């Protein structure tokens, strides 16, 4: 029974990673940049949801929507102010700017909301399910997280495959200049990608804090890094890859914690990542790009 419950916990944590990783992978696919501030957008989303439920007494579901709206605006503003002027700059310059934005968000959160951890109350309204006479308890958060993740995955896949905007996104990620020649507004498309990624980050933030209810200005950074490795693990730029990578990472993390050592779980996680990348350098579902001479 512990095996099954660990598996469920792993999939649930992995689903959160997957939702965050989707934001990383979409932005990477389209703008070819590692958006290190993504983890901090998660934190902002969680804070907004927390504040709107505690201070404004908004119902939980509405608080998620508010968080999504705020994060979307935040994502678009960050992109417009900090990343857009650097479209033609070297990728390292953009990376450092993203780190600057990450510092900025963390310290702004520290000033606004203080360093004392807030205890986040779960947004899930119903109770945990107990099976086999209490041997196996599935938390309601786990169920909601996994379902949300699946729904997001299906919607996002439909959006990128069928929708006009989604097609534009794929075109821009394939060849930005050619897409522009075909009349696609690349700047708008990139902004939209940031908007979607940030809205997903808000959802992930709320789900993450429902399961692990301590909220501080640095809450987002470690899940951010892990989700980023999940995106690389699955093949960065690929949406199903981010999903697979995220869930695998969550399962590995929970298994390593409960069966080997809780202190070494991160080391094991990253060691597996290194091994996978050495065997398959473009990630699990990544496409190998042929080199032209």
């Amino acid at each position: 029974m512990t095996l099954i419950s660990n598996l469920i916990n792993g999939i649930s944590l992995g689903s959160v990673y997957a939702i965050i990783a989707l934001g990383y992978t979409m932005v990477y696919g389209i703008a070819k940049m590692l958006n290190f501030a993504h983890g901090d957008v998660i934190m902002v989303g969680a804070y907004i949801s927390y504040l709107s439920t505690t201070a404004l007494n908004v119902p939980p579901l509405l608080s998620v929507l508010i968080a999504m709206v705020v994060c979307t605006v935040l994502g678009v503003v960050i992109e417009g102010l900090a990343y857009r002027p650097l479209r033609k700059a070297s990728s390292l310059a953009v990376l450092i700017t993203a780190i600057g934005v990450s510092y900025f968000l963390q310290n702004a959160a520290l000033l606004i909301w203080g360093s004392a951890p807030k205890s986040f109350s779960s947004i899930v309204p119903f109770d945990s399910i107990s099976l086999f006479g209490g041997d196996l308890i599935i938390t309601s958060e786990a169920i909601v997280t996994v379902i949300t993740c699946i729904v997001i995955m299906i919607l996002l896949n439909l959006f990128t495959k069928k929708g006009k905007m989604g097609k534009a996104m794929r075109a821009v990620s394939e060849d930005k200049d050619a897409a522009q020649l075909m009349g696609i507004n690349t700047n708008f498309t990139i902004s939209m990608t940031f908007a979607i990624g940030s809205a997903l980050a808000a959802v992930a933030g709320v789900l993450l804090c429902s399961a692990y209810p301590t909220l501080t200005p640095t809450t987002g950074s470690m899940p951010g890094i892990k989700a980023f490795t999940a995106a690389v693990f699955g093949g960065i730029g690929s949406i199903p890859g981010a999903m697979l990578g995220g869930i695998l990472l969550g399962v590995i993390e929970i298994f390593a914690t409960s069966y080997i050592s809780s202190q070494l779980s991160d080391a094991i996680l990253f060691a597996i990542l290194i091994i996978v990348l050495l065997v398959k350098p473009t990630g699990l579902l990544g496409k190998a790009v042929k080199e032209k001479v």
Partner: protein
Amino acid sequence: MKKFRDLSKYARTNLKTYGLVIIAFAILFPLQSAGMLSNSLNGQLIPICVYIVLAISLNLTVGISGELSLGHAGFMSVGAFSGVIAAASLQDSVGSEPLRLVFVIIIGGIFAGIAGLLIGIPVLRLRGDYLAIVTLAFGEIIKNIINCLYVGIDGSGLHFSVTDTASLGMSGGRIILNGPQGAVGITKIASFTAGFVLILFTLFVVINLIYSRSGRAITAIRDNRIAAESVGISITKYKLTAFITSAALAGMAGALYAMNFSTIAAKKFDFNTSILILVFVVLGGMGNIMGSIIATTVLYILPEMLREIGDYRMLIYAIVLILVMLLTNSSRAKQMAVSLETKIKNIFRKLKNILRKNKNGSGEVTDNG
């Protein structure tokens, strides 16, 4: 003796870099000995030296070799903790503190170099962002492993354990590494002079490597891997050379850093530290050694200078970082800079013309007189 102007452009830049470091030391050392430096600056001298060495060594990987590494603090950590263990083992046999420090730094460098070799061989097959993520992962792994490492020393030698201090099986002796607490009871033997010497050593190694045959091969690989390969340059060999040199220097800096504190924990050497060093390198200019030195010094002191504005200082730091990146890299800012430059030049030209006219005018007057 050749005149300074007759030297090649590279030699001049390198001499300037050495000169900058030596002059800075020549000014700061007497001030420090006389106790004229403020307490905060005094405490920062050795960390600044350490970070300068780290920035120069990372510049070798990122700027010269063109590989984005996000795990430089991992090598620093390896060097720091092997240095701590070495210092404890040598405490009785090597009495002289400076000599012991030299041994500690060398051992830190060797172990970090070995770590660099072990990581480098598989990792350098990867490219770009994948290499970045693996170095990041390596840094986290090192941090995690050292976090659960227990090391003690007694009459019969060193004892290692990964569970707790009780399982070390020690008879007397003392604990060197205590798991998540990190290294405890370090005898502080680091000195500003040692930091200065380490910077000079790093400069010597890195500059000589860059302007050697190997260095040219490394930059050739960075600029065009396929072209370099096709003229017979061994990619793995030269990339490894740069990577291991960089790792070993980072380990030496780490060992010196650890010797500056009485306790030090593995979590000090995390992702944020790696990023901090990377920021120094990028702001100083990729591949520009003197830039790394200046950027490190300024950016390391900046948060201290901003201490007066209290809580806002890290916010200001973040804003400064973003603005500097935007101003130095965006195409619009570059255009603005160019037009501003021409405007200023025009003003100067006009001023010069006016001055010249005046001079000519006055000359005429004297001629007439």
